[in-house]
């Protein structure tokens, strides 16, 4: 336990002497989703200040990137945001392809979108389940994991791995889709779409859940932009910003989908207590995004052509001199990769912008003058993955 270095208010003579208490929440704590360490300055149940300490999961990902070829670095990318490995691989591959000027075949594009959106659903399911756990509802967690299991089964059938896929790689995908994948995916989409409404009824509109999360940890638009929030956290504050639509990459301009944003309560079936930018909005944006992902996946299945799934990539791919910075809409926000080449197979510099890192930066700003029980509610709604924060 830390010494109380921050001095408290001098007590009035004759009054009961109270003292503020510094509490460590993490790095081992059930609700910090990994090894986030939050230092709370508390006055009883009231949290006056929250200071995140990070770095417990630092694995030198960027340094490794400067020592291995891009194809070798893809498995490391899986481990950044370990809940959405496909999206990380995708972002890095796109950056390298842009640097080398590689063209991905048509089917490769579709495979990539399918995998990214499936992984977005899988990751949002974990987020939804864990958020329920943070609020104290254990049951939705297992439902979420049950549905995620179907997606992981699909991934396993495709590439043999369930968490760290190493599947989307430079030039497309490393394997073609397995036999029967399209049918299984179509079955899953039909099965899964109504389940989202079921889970909304189970958890999202639950009275206690709404009371716990609505109007808690409100982030204004100005704050969200100033702190560099992206992804569901930004959209939860009501900003309609999604790179898939606003700066289309890959083939996202071919699909019809909406960008869900946080909306004020009272209409559209949203509970009246809800304020734009609160924890509930951020959580609910994820629920709606799963529906949009299902929409995109349906269109993918309709449009997907046959043919090659990977471009002809030379065995030793030389990265030309120059630098490329490319951002994709990852699951938790804008995932950026800076790749600097110097006419060698190994890049000179790889820099990763992890959305969780930027999203986490707002925690000290929001977790002020809140109750202790609000801290997991806010941190959970921001949904950080420590692998991506520390990289």
């Amino acid at each position, binding site marked *: *336990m830390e010494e109380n270095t921050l001095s408290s208010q001098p007590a009035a003579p004759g009054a009961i002497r109270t003292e503020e*208490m510094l*509490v460590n929440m993490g790095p081992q*704590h*059930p*609700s910090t989703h990994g090894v986030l360490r939050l230092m709370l300055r508390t006055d*009883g*149940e009231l949290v006056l200040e929250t200071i995140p300490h990070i770095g417990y999961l630092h694995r030198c990902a960027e340094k490794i990137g400067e020592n291995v070829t891009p194809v070798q670095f893809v498995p490391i990318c899986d481990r950044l945001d370990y809940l959405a490995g496909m999206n990380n691989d995708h972002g890095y591959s796109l950056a390298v392809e842009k640097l080398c000027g590689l063209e991905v075949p048509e089917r490769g594009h579709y495979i990539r979108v399918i995998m990214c959106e499936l992984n977005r659903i899988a990751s949002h399911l974990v987020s939804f389940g864990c958020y*329920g*756990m*943070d*609020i*104290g*509802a*254990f*049951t939705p967690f*297992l*439902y979420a994991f*049950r549905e995620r*299991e*179907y997606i992981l089964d699909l991934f396993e059938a495709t590439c043999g791995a369930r968490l760290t896929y190493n599947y989307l790689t430079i030039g497309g995908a490393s394997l073609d889709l397995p036999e029967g994948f399209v049918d299984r995916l179509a079955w899953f989409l039909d099965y899964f779409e109504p389940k989202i409404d079921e889970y909304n009824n189970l*958890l999202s509109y*639950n009275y*206690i*859940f709404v*009371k*716990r999360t609505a109007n808690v940890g409100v982030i204004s638009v100005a704050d969200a932009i100033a702190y560099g929030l992206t992804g569901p956290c930004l959209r939860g504050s009501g900003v309609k910003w999604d790179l898939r639509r606003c700066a289309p990459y890959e083939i996202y301009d071919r699909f019809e989908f909406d960008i869900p944003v946080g909306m004020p309560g009272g209409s559209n079936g949203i509970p009246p207590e809800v304020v734009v930018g609160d924890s509930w909005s951020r959580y609910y944006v994820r629920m709606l995004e799963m529906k949009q992902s299902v929409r995109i996946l349906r269109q993918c299945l309709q449009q997907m052509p046959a043919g090659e799934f990977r471009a002809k990539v030379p065995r030793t791919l030389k990265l030309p001199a120059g630098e490329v910075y490319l951002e994709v809409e990852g699951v938790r926000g804008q995932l950026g990769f800076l790749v600097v080449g110097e006419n060698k197979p190994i890049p000179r510099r790889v820099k990763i912008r992890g959305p969780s890192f930027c999203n986490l930066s707002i925690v000290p700003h929001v977790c002020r003058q809140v*109750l*202790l*029980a*609000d*801290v*997991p509610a806010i941190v959970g709604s921001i949904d950080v993955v420590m692998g991506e924060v520390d990289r």
Partner: protein
Amino acid sequence: MGSILRKVAFPIFLIGVAAIIVIAWVPALLYGTVDSMRDDLGRFYKWEPRGEHATLTLDNIRQYLEGSIAGQSAPAAHIRFGRSTAAACTYVLWLLQFRITRDVLAVVGVVGFVSLFAMFAIWWERKVAARMQSRLGPMRVGGWHGWAQSLADGIKLLQKEDIFIAGADPVLFRMAAYVAFIPALGLFIALPFSAAWIARDLDVGLIFILAMYGVGVLGVLIAGWASNNKWSMFGAMREACQMISYEIPLGFALLVPIMTVGTLRLTTIGDLQSGGFQTWLAFRNPFLLAAALIFFIAALASCKRAPFDLPEAESELVAGFHTEYSGFRWALFFFAEYAEMFAAGALAAILFFGAWYSPLPAAWGESWRHGPLWQQALHGVVFSGPLWLIGKGIFFVYVQMWLRWTLPRVRLDQVMYACVQVMLPLAMLVLLANTFWEWQVRDRSVLGTVANLVCTAVGAAAVLAIIGVGLYGFINRRRLVGTQVVKHLPGA
């Protein structure tokens, strides 16, 4: 060895269940025999000295059992035993007339019941949770649906190191688990399992039970303080303010049936509800029904069960007040929790839901009570007896589990708001309204009868709905768990 164990384990389990039933029923029967023997001896045989505390001699009992008291005619429904059986029974019955014997038996019974019930409830909670979450829960230990899981866990916990952390208070840290556990056992002393099967029939039984609940909090507080852990401290403080706040609406809700029946003696309150389903206190008038609901919610908060499980809120306080406990000391907290859960359910049953009586009017079975042994046994199962109370208690425990695995956790300020701003005024209003009702509305009047009927209908509909949903779930149990689980079900 393992295979033999697996084969005999389930029969042992069944025998254990049967044994619990017998343990719950036989002592009451034997006490009744002794008491009626005392009556009979006094009435028919001019037995001196009379009085409640008179001691029967061995000769009295043997002669009575053989039906051979010289010069006297035995009563009609007299049980007669052969010479050797009578000799064997004599010593047992002679012992049973003493208070100390009955107390020892009561202590053994209470400790045994609480331990068995806690083990059953922990296993059952895991199964209930699993079913709700489309899982299977424990399936391995013991063979049939992992029934021996709690036993295995208990043995494991016994073997674990009793970790004592360096900064903890040496005395208080060790004491806390007992301070939490003993009151939870103690409240069973005054808790009637049936009119006869009660350790001490106190005339302030209800207050004694509430006091024991109150003392139990002390254990949690001590645990939180002595652990020298900030999270434990948070948990203890939460428990303290939650428990103290909710005791007030709890008390008000309890005053409602107490004012209606005019006694604090739980056996009397129970006996007033012997006339079948519609005479259960909760269905007497709408305010008693409301009081039953308030009592249940307040009891939920007092037992720190979800959605009021703030003192051990996992996602906020790691494990709350028992963060630093391990091994059997840790298990004691859970034994206490499950014992209190059952006591809360049993109390709800005694005060509002017909105590140890079945929904059938007990008067229908009056003739069975004095008939041969098998009729007495049947009376215990069909009309009244400890099994009914245990069943009702288990039902309310199930409701608590059901809520726990369905609802998220409320925040501390919301718990306090719900107590002070909602429950307390509501409980006061209900008390006031009930007072007025009992003062103005006569029992057989039109208003009273209509209110009784409407409340009974509501209660019956609720019971039928629960049975219906349960049956639906049971019939479709293989479909409802989801396709993923079905693949792994036994026999799939």
